[in-house]
């Protein structure tokens, strides 16, 4: 399962660490960084490498004419969640994709974040016809070069197909993929043993 990377921006260390600890035991999420201020987050080289932001709205300039998203400089497709434990103006809270409060249980927090998850449609996809062909070739013990030559594609393309096969099946080793191909009747024992 591909984990969603989270960045937390919260001034209080106790709250920051508490949230980190809760999220680290939540399946499907990993806390990438914690920052105490927005400025700190902006200066960090990997600040953009996140799938989800959790921010204490008191850190924002609440009278600013720009929206929350503009102030933070976060792309539209990345959800921003408010972490609330004091009174925050309704107009500000509305600008967030979700809100978690300090009274939420771990399960409530998890459910709110899961509801935000987008684009996980790739995870359970069936193998394409092309990928099945490549998988059969791998099961027969062919090298990347041999597969590339026999299918008239580049080695680079073969590697990309193989990566997608691993991602879709969850099987990494060559003997494992062979077993997968046999289990799914893509290939017979005779074909492998030849």
């Amino acid at each position, binding site marked *: 399962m591909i984990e969603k990377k989270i960045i937390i921006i919260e001034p209080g260390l106790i709250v920051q660490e508490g949230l980190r600890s809760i999220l680290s035991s939540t399946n499907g999420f990993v806390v990438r960084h914690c920052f105490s201020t927005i400025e700190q987050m902006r200066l960090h080289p990997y600040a953009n490498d996140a799938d989800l932001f959790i921010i204490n709205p008191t850190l924002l300039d609440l009278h600013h004419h720009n929206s929350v998203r503009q102030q933070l400089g976060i792309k539209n497709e990345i959800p921003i969640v408010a972490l609330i434990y004091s009174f925050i103006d309704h107009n500000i809270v509305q600008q967030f994709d979700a809100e978690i409060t300090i009274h939420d249980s771990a399960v409530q927090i998890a459910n709110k974040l899961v509801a935000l998850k987008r684009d996980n449609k790739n995870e359970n996809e069936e193998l394409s016809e092309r990928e099945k062909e490549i998988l059969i070739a791998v099961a027969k013990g062919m090298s990347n070069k041999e597969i590339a030559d026999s299918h008239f594609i580049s080695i680079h393309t073969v590697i990309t197909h193989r990566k997608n096969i691993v991602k879709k099946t969850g099987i990494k080793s060559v*003997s494992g993929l062979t077993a997968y191909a046999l289990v799914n009747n893509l290939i017979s024992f005779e074909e492998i043993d030849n």
Partner: protein
Amino acid sequence: MIFTQETKMVEVALANHLNLHIIHRFGIAFGFGDKTIDEVCQASNLDTQIFLLVINSLNDKSETEHIQLNKNQLLQLLTFLKNTHQYYYDYYLPIMRTTIENLMRACSSQTTKALYRFYNDYEAEVLHHLEHEEKHFFTYIEQFCTNDAFVESMIIDEEDHHCSIDEKIFDIKNLLIKYINTPEADMLKIKLLDQLFHFQEDQNRHAKIEDVIMWSLKNQNKTL
């Protein structure tokens, strides 16, 4: 949890079922009553610090403590590793083999045959890895401890082996859970999965001890 020399051995044994194996592999016999770790180790001619180092690096989630090991300690750890291998050969690998063969008997189809074939590959790799370790790593420790002479630095490629074995066990579990649909044999599948989980955890613990030794050897080599 961190154990100390004053901890009762029975507490170690009850804290985690895998600790039972650790105690056994150190050659400690059960029936130690309420004796502390230190008392039991002394009675069994074991270095208490070594026992604590092993048991704590396997039970505590924090970073493993790296210390300089003396020759006597290294030899005690070597015995421990040898006992672990013996356990795999005599006990654990045969148990898993029996389970998968029972699974085959319960439902023989292309599906279970494919799994069986994969398992055979996996087992062969495990055996190869164990033998490789005995031939190189174990021999190196022995030479290091018996001769004072400098031994040519050993080739350390253990990590690759562990990695590929781990990958295969992960795949077997995935195949069993996600792709093999034979409801009539699900109890046997669970039994096999139970054993695979146990074996994997045990092997990870085994690798951790090897790291402790490796670190110490590398460091001593530098100072020679």
